[in-house]
């Protein structure tokens, strides 16, 4: 590739700047990773690169006369944040605007550039500088002066951009019309998918909020039993009183664990609403406590898990329903996986229950 003297001078300056360009990339990635973590934001990827000499030379060959100095090229350091959902691009942009100095004149929201009847590259590009408040090295003042490009896009936008890039054409202008049409059609599908993913997530979040208020209202017979409602119900600590009573048997420490593994047992017991779980709790609590008394008294075991309350409630419910050893074995198989031990344990509990008139 033959470049004119002006472009060669820009390339020389680029070579001298490589250590500081790498430093900028490293500092920006570090700032972004920390900020995402502090704001509990989960993204698909945060990646960065310093343009290679070959790539820069190619750019200079194409449009070298556009650049007076190396500082006019704003994407030598490029960083990209890839989100799961389209609405997260705006959330991250808001964070970025607060963190970095944005060169608004050169920043582009490609999402807004597309006309209503066109589909294609959708991404938010900010040209930024690292402010001294975030990083400063008196030995390297250029760190706060050199601009870098920060791209924000969704995973699906990223897929499309990569697929288009993979065609080998540097710009969409070069792509033959019939292939450009296919690519744009695909962009339309992915844009639709992005919108749908965001909509579905919003609906799920709304549903969860509704479930929480429904459970909190205490109208348990109106609350269908599913993973979300049971989780919300568990947050009310419905088995706490029984668990504390069981712990008192040996003045034991109560270890907080999740009762969620028993959700599948409740389904097997054909419980349809949280009200069904509540009824089991009130009808079987005494039996569940008696079972714990038989098993724990005199053992000296002074730590018990919170979930043992629900475990014993399920055992008593199964016995009351007359499902016997087979029912208990099935419950243990569901929770721990199938093993011969589960049948032995079920039989032992069944015999204990008979001896203690639990059934």
């Amino acid at each position, binding site marked *: 590739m033959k470049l004119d003297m002006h472009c060669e001078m820009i390339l020389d300056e680029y070579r001298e700047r490589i250590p500081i360009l790498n430093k900028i990339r490293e500092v920006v990635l570090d700032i972004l990773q920390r900020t995402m973590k502090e704001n509990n934001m989960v993204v698909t990827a945060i990646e960065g690169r310093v343009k290679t000499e070959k790539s820069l030379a190619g750019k200079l060959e194409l449009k070298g006369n556009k650049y007076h100095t190396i500082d006019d090229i704003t994407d030598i350091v490029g960083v990209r944040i890839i989100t799961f959902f389209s609405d997260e691009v705006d959330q991250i942009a808001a964070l970025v605007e607060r963190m970095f100095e944005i060169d608004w004149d050169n920043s582009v929201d490609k999402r807004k550039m597309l006309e209503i009847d066109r589909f294609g590259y959708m991404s938010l590009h900010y040209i930024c500088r690292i402010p001294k408040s975030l990083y400063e090295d008196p030995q390297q003042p250029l760190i706060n002066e050199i601009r870098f490009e920060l791209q924000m896009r969704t995973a699906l936008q990223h897929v499309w951009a990569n697929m288009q890039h993979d065609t080998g054409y540097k710009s969409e202008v070069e792509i033959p019309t019939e292939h450009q049409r296919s690519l744009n059609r695909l962009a339309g599908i992915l844009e639709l998918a992005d919108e749908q993913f965001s909509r579905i997530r919003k609906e799920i979040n709304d549903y969860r909020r509704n479930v929480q208020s429904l459970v909190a209202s205490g109208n348990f017979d109106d609350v269908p039993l599913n993973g979300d409602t049971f989780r919300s119900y568990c947050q009310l600590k419905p088995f706490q009183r029984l668990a504390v009573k069981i712990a008192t048997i040996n003045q034991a420490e109560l270890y907080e664990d999740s009762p969620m593994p028993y959700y599948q047992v409740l389904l097997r017991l054909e419980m349809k609403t949280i009200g069904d779980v509540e009824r089991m709790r009130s009808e079987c609590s005494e039996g569940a406590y008696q079972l714990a008394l038989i098993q724990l008294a005199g053992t000296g075991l002074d730590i018990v898990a919170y979930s043992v309350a629900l475990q014993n409630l399920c055992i008593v419910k199964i016995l009351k329903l007359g499902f016997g050893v087979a029912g208990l074995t099935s419950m243990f198989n569901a*929770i721990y996986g199938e093993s011969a031990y589960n049948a032995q344990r079920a039989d032992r509990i069944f015999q204990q229950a008979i001896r203690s008139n639990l059934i």
Partner: protein
Amino acid sequence: MDITIKNEGEKTLVTLNGRLDTTNADQFQADIQPLMTSPKPDIDIDCSGMTYTSSQGLRIFLSLQKSVLARGGKMVMLNMNPQVKEVFDITGFSNIIAIR
């Protein structure tokens, strides 16, 4: 309580024999200290020779598992005899500790 710790490639095999109770829990805790520091551990605890565990033992297994998971590793207790398994079952620890 006898304990042997063997490293087999990326896996650590811990073999327990005898009773784990108040008389030897401190020693057991000291013996497993090396397992509390290695990065991303993969620990199998063979319990076929273990005849009993007290609540001190449960607490030690719990803290070991927490430490292992915090380091991105995994730990599983294997071949528990029915007497020891019952201790885990009636305390609800079967729901907390990975047992196979």
